């Protein structure tokens, strides 16, 4: 039998945000127009992962608006405040709280005005999907649009901003002891591989990714991160290598620098784990990097499980795996 199957797991933790006493801030402006539509000016860049959507969801939830009435303006030095970079799996964790702060304050202003309109205390009111309710009631007493129009008519402030500082002190310079990060992401992946012992080719058959999102604000977006992270991990483990010859890249085209294609990326089973994080917005935390870190060790451990050989250098190319098999054969340590 030239093809051997194996299973491997990889676990990891990942410090979310910057650490090391580096500025780790989120900030956003928010305003509601007379017609009840809301604009969030959010400094966080969206690279496709979905922070603009998370910002819209947090704003809609906290203001009590409908998601379709939220517009997000992102990452422009002229219109949005500085929210730090989108990196370090920090955007949801840090910017989510800044937007929560801004939206809470706007919500309070709206409820204060509504309380005046209906001669009650603002704590007796709540808002959902663009309507204002007496708490616990089934029928709304007004729309947010009516309340917003009232605020503007009275010359009130229908705008706010929120800011959040996630910076942490640096660790001890001699021992690195200390609270290095505000929080950590957690993930474990299982990989199933098939190794062709005649060619050294490793085929990944399946990945199961158990990634702790704290609270998945948008589960499909979390799955997108998990899928993309695992696919990128397959590339790192098996294919993608920049080869330099005397410092000069020889893999300067996609003909030589190989990325996984749809033929190489296996079925990826997304297992979203939700362990509430008390420091995150609604218990949420970042998953961008945790979603890719465990893939490579899971694949390397699965290769060992399949053929009994530990690959210690990445990537596990067919040449490298085949050579390791041949060396084991020469030592009489390989079971064909």
């Amino acid at each position: 039998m030239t093809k051997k199957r194996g299973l491997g797991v990889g676990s990891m933790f990942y410090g979310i945000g910057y650490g090391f006493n580096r500025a780790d801030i989120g900030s956003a402006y928010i305003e509601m127009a007379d017609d009840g539509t809301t604009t969030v000016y959010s400094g966080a860049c969206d690279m496709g992962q979905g922070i603009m959507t998370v910002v819209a969801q947090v704003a809609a939830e906290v203001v009590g608006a409908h998601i379709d009435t939220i517009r997000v303006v992102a990452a422009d030095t002229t219109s949005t405040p500085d929210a730090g970079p989108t990196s370090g799996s920090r955007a949801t964790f840090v910017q989510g709280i800044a937007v929560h702060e801004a939206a809470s304050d706007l919500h309070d202003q709206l409820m204060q005005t509504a309380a005046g309109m209906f001669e009650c205390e603002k704590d007796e009111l709540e808002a959902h999907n663009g309507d204002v309710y007496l708490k616990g009631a089934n029928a709304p007493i007004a729309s947010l649009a009516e309340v917003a129009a009232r605020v503007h008519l009275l010359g009130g402030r229908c705008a706010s901003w929120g800011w959040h500082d996630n910076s942490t002190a640096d660790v001890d310079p001699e021992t690195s002891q200390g609270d290095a990060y505000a929080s950590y992401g957690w993930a474990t992946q299982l990989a199933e591989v098939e190794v062709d012992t005649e060619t050294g080719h490793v085929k990944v058959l399946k990945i199961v990714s158990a990634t702790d999102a704290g609270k998945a604000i948008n589960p499909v977006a979390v799955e997108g991160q998990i899928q993309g992270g695992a696919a990128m991990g397959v590339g790192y483990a098996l294919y993608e290598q920049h080869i330099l010859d005397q410092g000069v890249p020889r893999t300067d085209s996609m003909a030589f620098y190989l990325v996984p294609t749809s033929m190489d990326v296996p079925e990826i089973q997304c297992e979203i784990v939700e362990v509430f994080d008390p420091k995150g917005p609604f218990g949420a935390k970042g998953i961008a990097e945790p979603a890719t870190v465990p893939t490579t060790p899971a694949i390397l451990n699965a290769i060992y499980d399949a053929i009994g050989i530990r690959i210690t250098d990445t990537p596990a190319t067919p040449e490298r795996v085949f050579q390791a098999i041949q060396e084991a054969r020469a030592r009489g340590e390989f079971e064909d």
Partner: protein
Amino acid sequence: MAQPEQVTSAAQSGPYDWIGSSVPKVDALDKALGITQYVGDMQMPGMLHARIRWSGVPHAVIRGIDTSDAEKVPGVRAVLTAGDIPGVNRYGLAVQDQRVLADDKVRSAADPVALVAAETEQAAEEAINKIKLDLEPLRPVLSIEDALDPTAPAIHEGGNLFARTTVRKGDLDQGVRDSDVIVETTYRTHLMDHMAMETESSLAYMDPTGVLTIITSTQYPYRDRRQIAPALNLSMNKVRVVQAPIGGGFGRKDDITSEIHAGLLALKTHRPVRLIYTRQDSLIANTKRHPMLMKFRTGARSDGRLTFVDADIYGDTGAYLSLGAFVIKKAGIHACGPYDVPNIRVDTHTLYTNNLSSGAMRGFGVLQAAMAHESQMDQLAHRLGISPIDIRLINTLKPGLATGTGQVMDEGCGIEATVLRIKEYMESHDLRFARS
């Protein structure tokens, strides 16, 4: 911040209206329909096209750059070298070791030495190929081992070892004495490219109010502005950076990529300038994922409990630091994995070489560390006859236990839950390890 209200109101169907709901991404429909305008889709009247000439050699003294033939190419409107930079020809995220355009030396094959702006991309391409570089080769530093060699030339002032960090906990000797099994292995990881679908791209123009506006594929406009303004000798409030819709970043676009170059050409030509990297440019230039050499020794008792981790991590940050020292420090802080380890010695070393630079990339050093600590865990499991799942469950951090750097976990510690989820998946799908 206030804790979220958990009480379900009559007006709600669940605890939340929108949190936990898979609403379509706000930008999904436009992307699916092809409406989204990336920088590569943007056009402006009078817009010029830019290209960059890279050094192509890893280490050399620049004796001269002859641009005369390039300037004669029809349609060329500017050919710029270091002397054309109006401000400070230095930038960088942690230390300012990068040049907008190479001046004294070439430190990597990806050093930008000249810029061209032309009426067409073809003219710009022709012109960069007609720039003649007179370079005097220097001995290059091409590996971690080279960088550790005291006789190797210093790439920057201060030598090739940029930083060393140390993690210390407990008593390593005691950990060794407590061990029933010790595994020792050296791991090596490779240079990886981010390979975002969209390459680096910027469109720069002077707006009607005299603000240099740069629409760009970035992960952080404010930090870009912080680096663009001094290089171009502009005040920061006269530089506007706008993030365009971008086709992937993965850490690469944390750094300055095309922004200063596009802005410089727009200033010099008084025309809008669009700079879009070819795939080849993107593979050559800017930051990659750090290659690391990691020597690990890990011990455990016969019951599977970890006794110590003893490791040296060497990271090749290439010719420029970018965030390299933070990446490699983070690798050290995560070197023991999500486990309760009583005795630790980890040293990290951030090294300059004349290779392509590495910086932030999805995982930020933790991926390399995990490759090593997880391989060690499985080696221990096999030596002890414990399953890979069980050895993790025995050692995972839990609320009240502390990380390798002494941080005590609260109830948000989810590692055990993720291992258990995998265990349940294996059991429910009748999946078994072949060797344990």
